[in-house]
C-alpha cells in the first residue's frame, strides 16, 4: 500500500485519505457555460505521469492537501496544506 507524505502527520497509509480528485479551477457561476461547467464537473485529464490532485486526510489531520503525484510511479513530488500552503 502506498504511503502519502502528509505535511502535518508524516507518511501515512493511503487508506487514511480520501481521494478528492484532480485539482482544477471552479468556473465563475455567473458567466459559465454548460460546456465549461461540465468539463469542470466530469472531465479529467487522467495523465500517465505527474498530476495535481486533492486528497483529504480524513483519518489524520483532517486537512485538504494539494498533492503532485506521478501516476506512473506513485512518486509524490509535493504535498502541501491546501489552505495554508504548509509543507513538511
Amino acid at each position: 500500500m502506498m504511503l502519502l507524505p502528509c505535511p502535518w502527520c508524516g507518511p501515512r497509509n493511503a487508506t487514511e485519505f480520501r481521494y478528492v480528485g484532480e485539482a482544477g479551477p471552479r468556473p465563475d457561476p455567473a458567466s459559465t457555460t454548460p460546456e465549461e461547467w461540465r468539463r469542470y464537473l466530469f472531465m479529467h485529464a487522467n495523465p500517465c505521469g505527474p498530476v495535481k490532485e486533492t486528497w483529504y486526510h480524513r483519518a489524520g489531520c483532517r486537512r485538504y492537501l494539494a498533492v503532485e503525484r506521478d501516476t506512473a510511479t506513485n512518486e509524490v513530488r509535493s504535498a502541501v496544506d491546501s489552505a495554508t500552503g504548509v509543507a513538511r
Partner: protein
Amino acid sequence: MSDTTPLARGPVAVATPVVRDGWELDARVATGPLTLSDESPLAKVHVRAPFDGASRAALGVGLGRTARGDLGTGDVLVVGSGPGEWLVLGAPGTASALRASIEQRLARTGEFTTVLDLTHGRALLRLTGPTAARVLAGVCAIDFSDAVTPDGAALRTSLAAVVTDVVRDDRSGVPSYLLHVERSSGQYLADALLDAGRGSGLEMTGFRGLG
C-alpha cells in the same frame, strides 16, 4: 427527588456500577498489568486557533506533542491534537471552569479562536501496560515503537476503522495510551481493543483519572 438528580454515564457499559461525583463509574479493579479503562468523565476541552500563533504559545505545546500544566483549574494535560487543534484534559467536573479559563487566556491573543467543552461528546479510553503497543498493533498501522511514538507523542489515525486521537501518556514508566474518539464509537472501540488484547490478558479496570 433524588431520582431526578442528573446521572452522567460514560460510553462503555459498566460491569460493577458505583456513583461518584454524579458519574456512574465501574468499580472493577484489574489484577493483571495490561488494562483498559473508560476515562470519559475527565473534562475534555477542544480548542481551535491558528496553528502557529500566540495561542499556541499560550497553550504551551504544538502539533503532535503533549504538555502537563495548570491553566487555572488544577492539573491538565494539553495535547496538540491537530493542526490548529488542541485537546485539554482535566479533572472531572472542571470542564466549565477550564473552558472559561482557556477562553480568557486566548482572548488576549486577539486571534480567531474557539473553545468548546466536549466532555460529553467524546469517549476517552486509557490502555496501559508493558505490552500495550502490541495490542495497538492489532488494530492500527502506526509504528508505536519508542523511537517513533515516544511518551508525550500525540497523533490522529485509524484504530479498528475508527478515527482516533492517540496520546502516549506513560504512567510511572509504564507505556500508556489515551484514546479519544466520538462518544458513540466508545463501546465499539473498547470491544475492538479487548478483542485485540485477548491473547495478551487485557482487562477492563475502573476509572483512574488524570493523575
